[in-house]
């Protein structure tokens, strides 16, 4: 039980408990944040391994490695694990670590619930991953689990998938409530809403999005559960239901969900770019309003995912223009980041490299999103690799690069050591090249008509697929380097100053590095 070596216990009067119970019973926001981050990285590797299986199968035409049934399970599980297991918990982990430090709070507002919301996650994913070993296999209907594919035609393990989604939904909702309570109630005296750091703002808005849409996701899987096991007909046409209803309810959750995965990255990048430009963020208030506008608009654009199901022309036009409208606040943010860098004293350490790549590549993903928003064009792009290219461009260099940038930015604060800058820059460049190699050719494949979610493809797509697979292997292998860098940084390295980045601002840099187990027992004064 006491296998975990704990060097900090002696240093502090109220240090952490020893052994495994420290992690099981902890209510400390830093411990819980660390656990969230470790868990999300483990899931990132697991989901990434599945992506490697997918890309290995698609390396050349024909069926070489896996059967189509297993291929479908891989695409489904890859999506579910990356969305719910890697990206979302990583941001909750960052929130746990950084929100109290940023607003001068001693801990999260509801520390016991915090512990519970973390420990639900391993349970949920144990259930989800166990479906791989069940008779009939894991869910194979895509991460969007459209009915009736997931109800009438789903494997027997679908019910386990539904319970896993329920549990991770409860975990997310509790995390979101905790974030809201912390931000609303525990800000240091003098920190008004419009003085909050942007990461705090984006997380506050993300938390409201989570509260608004995770229950809808829980509702839609509950309807599935009833259709499968209790003979209801929510999505069964023979009983008077409608499969298209599933898509409406799912995407009512699904579209805000994509902003849940990107808004905290917006916040983190809004700290990193000013720090390495040695200039204050350009247009703070407009950044806040832009995030708010994006969040509100995200509720009225869901049907752009389903232009091809037969929406009347007026509906298509509404959802098309509403979707395009999102480009306006997003553009405001991109211009503000660029304006922050403009004539700044720039330096390109690893966090900045990831942040700049984030701005450029996320913008590319945004542009392909605009192309997909054009309803008539979407009839051509729908369900092709163009869509896959689009959402990987917003999620990999968007969400994931945002997480990497945050990790390098705050690692000195977490560990008290500087990470190895050379290795980190190597990690960046290999990730950058690998990721572009993997996902850029997918645009061409999609425009040429290669459908998504297939284990085999026509011969004319062979070359681009091979390039894409090589890039994916490169990106995947590179992430082991990230693991090595983080482990190395935890174990030692150059001691980090309280403020290791000379341009960084915020309360988190006023506490020593590594951040003591308990911080801001007395709230700081914010002027």
């Amino acid at each position, binding site marked *: 039980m006491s296998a975990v070596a704990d060097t900090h216990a002696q240093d502090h009067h109220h240090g952490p408990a020893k052994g495994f119970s420290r992690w099981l019973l902890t209510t400390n926001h830093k411990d819980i944040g660390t656990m969230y981050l470790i868990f999300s990285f483990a899931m990132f590797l697991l989901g990434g391994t599945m992506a490697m299986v997918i890309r290995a199968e698609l390396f050349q035409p024909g069926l070489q490695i896996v059967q189509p049934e297993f291929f479908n399970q891989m695409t489904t599980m890859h999506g579910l694990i990356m969305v719910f297991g890697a990206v979302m918990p990583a941001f909750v982990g960052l929130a746990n670590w950084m929100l109290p430090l940023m607003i001068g709070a001693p801990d999260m507002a509801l520390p016991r619930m915090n512990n519970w919301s973390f420990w639900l996650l391993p349970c949920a994913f144990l259930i989800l991953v166990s479906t791989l070993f069940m008779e009939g296999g894991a869910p194979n209907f895509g991460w969007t689990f459209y009915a009736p594919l997931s109800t009438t035609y789903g494997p027997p393990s679908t019910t386990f998938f539904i319970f896993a989604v329920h549990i991770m939904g409860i975990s997310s909702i509790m995390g979101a409530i905790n974030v809201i309570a912390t931000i609303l109630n525990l800000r240091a005296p003098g920190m008004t809403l419009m003085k909050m750091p942007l990461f705090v703002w984006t997380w506050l808005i993300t938390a409201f999005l989570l509260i608004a849409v*995770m229950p809808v996701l829980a*509702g839609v899987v509950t309807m599935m559960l009833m259709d499968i096991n209790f003979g209801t007909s929510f999505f069964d046409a023979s009983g008077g239901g409608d499969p298209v209803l599933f898509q409406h309810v799912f995407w009512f959750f699904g579209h805000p969900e994509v902003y849940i995965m990107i808004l905290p990255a917006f916040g983190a990048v809004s700290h990193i770019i000013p720090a390495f430009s040695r200039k204050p963020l350009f247009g703070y208030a407009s950044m806040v309003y832009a995030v708010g506008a994006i969040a509100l608009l995200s509720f009225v654009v869901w049907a752009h995912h389903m232009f091809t199901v037969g929406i009347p022309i007026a509906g298509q036009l509404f959802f098309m223009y509403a979707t395009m409208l999102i480009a306006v606040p997003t553009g405001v943010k991109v211009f503000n980041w660029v304006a922050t860098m403009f004539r700044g004293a720039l330096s390109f350490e690893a966090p900045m490299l990831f942040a700049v790549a984030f701005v450029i590549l996320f913008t590319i993903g945004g542009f392909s999103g605009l192309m997909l928003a054009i309803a008539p064009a979407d009839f051509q792009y729908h369900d092709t690799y163009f869509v896959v290219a689009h959402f990987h461009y917003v999620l990999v260099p968007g969400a994931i690069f945002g997480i990497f940038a945050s990790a390098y930015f705050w690692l000195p604060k977490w560990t008290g050591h500087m990470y190895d800058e050379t290795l980190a820059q190597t990690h960046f460049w290999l990730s950058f090249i690998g990721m572009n190699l993997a996902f850029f050719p997918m645009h061409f494949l999609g425009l040429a008509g290669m459908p998504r979610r297939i284990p085999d493809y026509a011969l004319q797509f062979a070359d681009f697929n091979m390039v894409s697979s090589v890039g994916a292997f490169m990106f995947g292998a590179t992430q082991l380097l990230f693991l090595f860098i983080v482990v190395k940084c935890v174990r030692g390295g150059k001691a980090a100053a309280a403020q290791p980045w000379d341009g960084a601002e915020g309360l988190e840099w006023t506490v020593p590095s590594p951040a003591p187990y308990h911080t801001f027992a007395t709230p700081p004064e914010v002027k």
Partner: protein
Amino acid sequence: MDERTPEAEARPRTNARVVSWCLAGVVGMFAFGFALVPLYDVFCEITGINGKTGGRYEAVAAAEADVTRTVQVQFLAQNGPGMPWTFRPVTRSIDVHPGELVTVAFFAQNPTGAAMVGQAVPSLSPSEGTLYFHKTECFCFNQQPLAAGESTEMPLVFIVDRDLPEHITKLTLSYTLYDQSKTATVSDMDRPITTTNENG
């Protein structure tokens, strides 16, 4: 966290209050997810966008047929998954005048050795025409029981509304017939997963 204590009044936003508001939001949104189901049905009924033609139409007054216009109405019949019946329209296509009362029939036969119950679900294309297609009598209003080997001709009486938009000259009415004899086991979980792509 009693809210009437002076302490709580000084700090009106207690954690308990924030949590209760958030939980209210969560419960509300969960309910909203389910409320989307009837909302969707109502929305589709008003707009006709999912092609589901409405229930029995009561003609207010015998409308006069508009002989200046002709609309082609096509009929399709198909079986839902696992439905063994023979099911086809007797009339595949018919030219009608808007306002005219038209009667057509569909043929159904139960070739199995057991009594079964079928339910036809309609869908009209283009969906824009859904609101202008009125059925005064339809076999789809009821379930259809057929004994072993029995066959039947099922009537459909309809009126194409005189207000049908000018640009619609053709309507296609499709019926899908579902097996309702085994509603208790909607999803056959034991069935092996079928794929069309098994030749590894």
